[in-house]
C-alpha cells in the first residue's frame, strides 16, 4: 500500500468519530444490533461531547464482560440483544383526526381512569386543538422555573447547555459497571430528564415528565439525573396511569438522585406499561436501576412507586445514606395479575451516623402471577445509632398466585436498630360478603379493600397521582376474584 493511502487510513481510523462512521447518520434508525459502532452512532446522532462518548464506550466495553444476573425470582425469556434497535429518532406518530379512530378498549380505560378528553387526545396522538396552547403552557412553566435558577430539561439538552453539571454528577449514584442492565444503559441510553435545583430553592411545582420541555418519546433506555443542592427541595413525578404500549420490549432505565446537605427529593412513579395479555404473551420487561445518594448531612430522599404494569418488573429503588442524619424512604405498591411477575424492593445502605430509613412494601398478587419483595438493609460499621423500619405485606387474591419475601439484613454495628415486620393475607369471603350485603358489588368491593390495604403507600403520592392510582389499582385487578 502506498504511504499516502496508509496515512489517510490511519487518519480516518484513529481520529475521533465526531460525525459518525461508515453508516449514513442522516437515517432515522441505527441498524439493528449492538456493537461499538452502534454506541458511536448514538453519541454522534446526539452530537455529544467527547467525555460522554468515552463514558458510553467504557461502559460498553465493561458490559461485554458481564453476564445477565439470574438470581431473581423471575422467569425471564432469553433476550436477544442483537435483535434490538438502539436508536430511533424522536417518533413522529401518525396524527389521528379524532378520538373515534382510537382503539375503543384504550378509550374505555381512559374513561375509567377519569382522564380528561383533552388529555386522552394527547395520549392517543390525536391532534390537539389550538385552544389548548401546549406551547404556551410549557413556556410559562419553564419561565417560572428559570427565574428560580432551576434547570429542568431533557437529558440531551442538558448535556449541551449544562455540560459541567451533568459531567459532575453522572454516574455518581449508579457507577458504571454497577449491574448488567444499568451498564447497558450507560452505553446506549436514549434520553431522559435532567433536573438541578440550586441552593436553598424549593421548587414550587411538581416536576413531571409530562411537562418536560422536550416531550419526545421516552424511549427504552431512559436516563434521569436529579440533583438537589444544599437546602433545596423538589417533588418529581414519573409515568402516568394510562396504559402505555411500546414495540420495544426491554426497558432498562436508570434514575440517579443526589441530595446535598439539608436537601430533599421526593420521587414518585406510577407505572402501567403493557403487562402482556391474559395468557401471558407479550408485555414489557421493566428492568430499572434507581438509586439516590444522600450525600449531605440531614438530606432526604423518598421513593414512592405504584407498579401495576409490565410483564416483568425488576427494580430496587435504593438510598445510600452517606450524610449523617440523612433519611431514606421507600413506599411501594406492586400489583401482579394474570401471568405478570415482579421482583422488587429496596436497598437502604446506612453509612452515616444517626441515619434513618423506612421501607413499606405492599404486594398484591392475583391470577397466576408471582410477586416478590427483596430488600437489603445494611448498617455499616460507622453508621452508629441508625434505625430502619421495614414492613412488607403481601395480599393474595385467589389461590393460584404467589407472594415471596427475601429480606436481607446486614448489621455491622451494635448501636443500630433494625425492625422488620411482615404479613400475608387474603381478602376473605366474609369481607367480600360484608361489602356485598351493604349493596357494594364484588368488583367494587375488591377495589375498596385493595385500596384500603395500599392506603399507607398511596397517601405518599402527590394528590392528582393518588386519585388516579386508586382507580388504577381497581382496574388492574378486574376479573381477579370469582
Amino acid at each position, binding site marked *: 500500500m502506498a504511504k499516502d493511502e496508509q496515512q489517510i487510513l490511519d487518519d480516518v481510523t484513529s481520529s475521533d468519530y465526531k460525525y459518525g462512521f461508515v453508516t449514513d447518520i442522516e437515517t432515522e434508525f441505527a441498524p439493528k444490533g449492538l456493537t461499538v459502532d452502534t454506541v458511536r452512532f448514538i453519541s454522534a446522532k446526539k452530537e455529544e461531547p467527547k467525555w460522554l462518548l468515552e463514558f458510553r464506550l467504557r461502559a460498553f466495553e465493561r458490559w461485554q464482560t458481564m453476564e445477565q444476573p439470574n438470581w431473581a425470582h423471575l422467569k425471564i425469556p432469553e433476550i436477544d440483544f442483537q435483535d434490538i434497535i438502539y436508536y430511533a429518532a424522536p417518533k413522529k406518530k401518525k396524527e389521528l383526526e379524532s378520538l373515534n379512530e382510537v382503539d375503543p378498549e384504550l378509550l374505555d380505560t381512559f374513561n375509567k381512569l377519569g382522564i380528561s378528553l383533552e388529555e386522552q387526545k394527547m395520549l392517543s396522538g390525536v391532534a390537539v386543538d389550538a385552544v389548548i396552547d401546549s406551547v404556551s403552557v410549557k413556556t410559562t412553566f419553564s419561565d417560572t422555573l428559570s427565574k428560580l435558577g432551576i434547570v429542568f430539561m431533557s437529558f440531551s439538552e442538558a448535556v449541551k447547555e449544562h455540560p459541567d453539571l451533568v459531567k459532575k454528577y453522572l454516574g455518581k449514584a449508579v457507577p458504571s459497571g454497577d449491574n448488567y442492565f444499568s451498564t447497558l444503559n450507560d452505553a446506549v441510553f436514549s434520553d431522559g430528564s435532567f433536573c438541578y435545583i440550586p441552593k436553598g430553592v424549593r421548587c414550587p411545582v411538581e416536576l413531571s415528565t409530562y411537562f418536560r420541555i422536550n416531550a419526545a418519546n421516552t424511549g427504552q433506555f431512559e436516563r434521569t439525573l436529579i440533583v438537589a443542592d444544599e437546602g433545596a427541595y423538589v417533588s418529581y413525578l414519573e409515568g402516568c396511569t394510562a396504559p402505555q404500549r411500546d414495540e420495544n420490549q426491554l426497558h432498562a432505565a436508570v434514575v440517579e438522585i443526589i441530595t446535598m446537605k439539608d436537601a430533599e427529593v421526593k420521587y414518585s412513579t406510577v407505572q402501567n406499561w403493557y403487562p402482556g395479555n391474559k395468557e401471558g404473551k407479550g408485555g414489557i420487561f421493566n428492568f430499572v436501576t434507581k438509586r439516590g445518594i444522600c450525600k449531605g448531612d440531614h438530606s432526604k430522599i423518598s421513593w414512592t412507586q405504584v407498579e401495576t404494569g409490565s410483564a416483568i418488573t425488576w427494580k430496587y429503588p435504593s438510598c445510600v445514606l452517606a450524610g449523617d442524619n440523612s433519611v431514606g424512604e421507600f413506599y411501594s405498591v406492586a400489583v401482579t395479575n394474570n401471568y405478570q411477575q415482579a421482583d422488587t424492593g429496596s436497598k437502604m445502605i446506612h453509612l452515616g451516623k444517626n441515619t434513618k430509613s423506612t421501607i413499606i412494601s405492599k404486594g398484591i398478587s392475583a391470577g397466576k402471577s408471582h410477586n416478590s419483595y427483596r430488600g437489603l438493609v445494611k448498617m455499616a460499621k460507622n453508621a452508629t445509632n441508625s434505625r430502619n423500619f421495614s414492613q412488607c405485606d403481601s395480599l393474595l387474591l385467589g389461590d393460584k398466585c404467589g407472594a415471596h419475601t427475601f429480606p436481607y439484613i446486614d448489621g455491622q454495628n451494635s448501636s443500630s436498630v433494625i425492625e422488620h415486620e411482615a404479613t400475608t393475607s387474603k381478602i376473605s369471603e366474609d369481607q367480600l360478603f360484608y361489602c356485598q*350485603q*351493604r*349493596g*357494594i358489588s364484588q368488583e367494587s368491593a375488591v377495589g375498596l379493600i385493595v385500596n*384500603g390495604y395500599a392506603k399507607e403507600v398511596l397517601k405518599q403520592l402527590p394528590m392528582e397521582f393518588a386519585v388516579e392510582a386508586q382507580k388504577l389499582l381497581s382496574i388492574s385487578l378486574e376479573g381477579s376474584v370469582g
Partner: protein
Amino acid sequence: MLLNIKNLHVSIHGKEILKGVNLEVKKGEVHAIMGPNGTGKSTLAAAVAGKDGYEVTKGEILYNGKEIMDLAPEVRAQEGIFLGFQYPVEIPGVSITNFMRTAINEIRKYHGQEAMTAGEFLKKMNEKQKLVEIHSKLKNRSVNEGFSGGEKKKNEIFQMAMLEPQLAILDETDSGLDIDALKIVANGVNKLKTKDNATIVITHYQRLLDYIVPDYVHILFDGKIVMTGGKELALELEEKGYEWIKERVNS
C-alpha cells in the same frame, strides 16, 4: 307482604339445616326469632341475604312479591334487605366514611338516582350518628378495626340508619352487649321503625325484647318454626326453657 318465606329448605355442604321454614312478615312489623344454638337461626338470615354456600334445595323466598333466590347479595341489599351480622368483620384501611359512601351511592345508582354530594353525605352521617348515639370520631376509623364487640354491634345499627333498609334482619345483635349498649342499640332500632319497613330480630335472650318489643315471636327448632305467638311467648320460653319446646314438638 314484605317477606314471604314458603317451605324453605337450606343446606350447607350438603347438610340440611332448614327443613321447611314458613314465615310471613308485613310492613310495619317487628318479628323475633328465637331458638337453641345450631337450630338454623343464622342460616335463615344468611339464606335471605344470599350468602354463598347456603343452598336453597326447596321452597321460595319472596320479597315484595318477587322471588329473590337468584339475585346476587348486593342486589338484594340494593332492593332494601339489610343484615346486621352476628360477627361483623374488620376491613382494615377502609374508612367507615368511604365504605358507607360507596354503599349508598351504589344503591342510589341501582335506583337510577344520582350519587350524593360530599356535603349531603357528611350531613347524613352526622345526623345518623346522633340518632344512634355513636361516637363522632367514628368517621375516619377503618370498618370495625379495633372495635370492641359492643362497638361493632353499634356500628351495625349505624350502618342500618345510613342505608335505611326496608327489611332489616338483626342476627344476635344483643350478644356481647352490656346493658347500656343494649339500650342504645335497641333505641336506635326503635327510632328507625316506620310503617313501611320491618325488622326481624334474632336473639337468644328475652331481655332484648323488653326494649325492642316484637309483634310476633317465632321459635325455630330443628330447622323449622315450631311455635308462633305474641311477645308473651318469649317470656314463657325464658321461664320454661327449650326442653319445653322439645316436649311440645315431640308430642
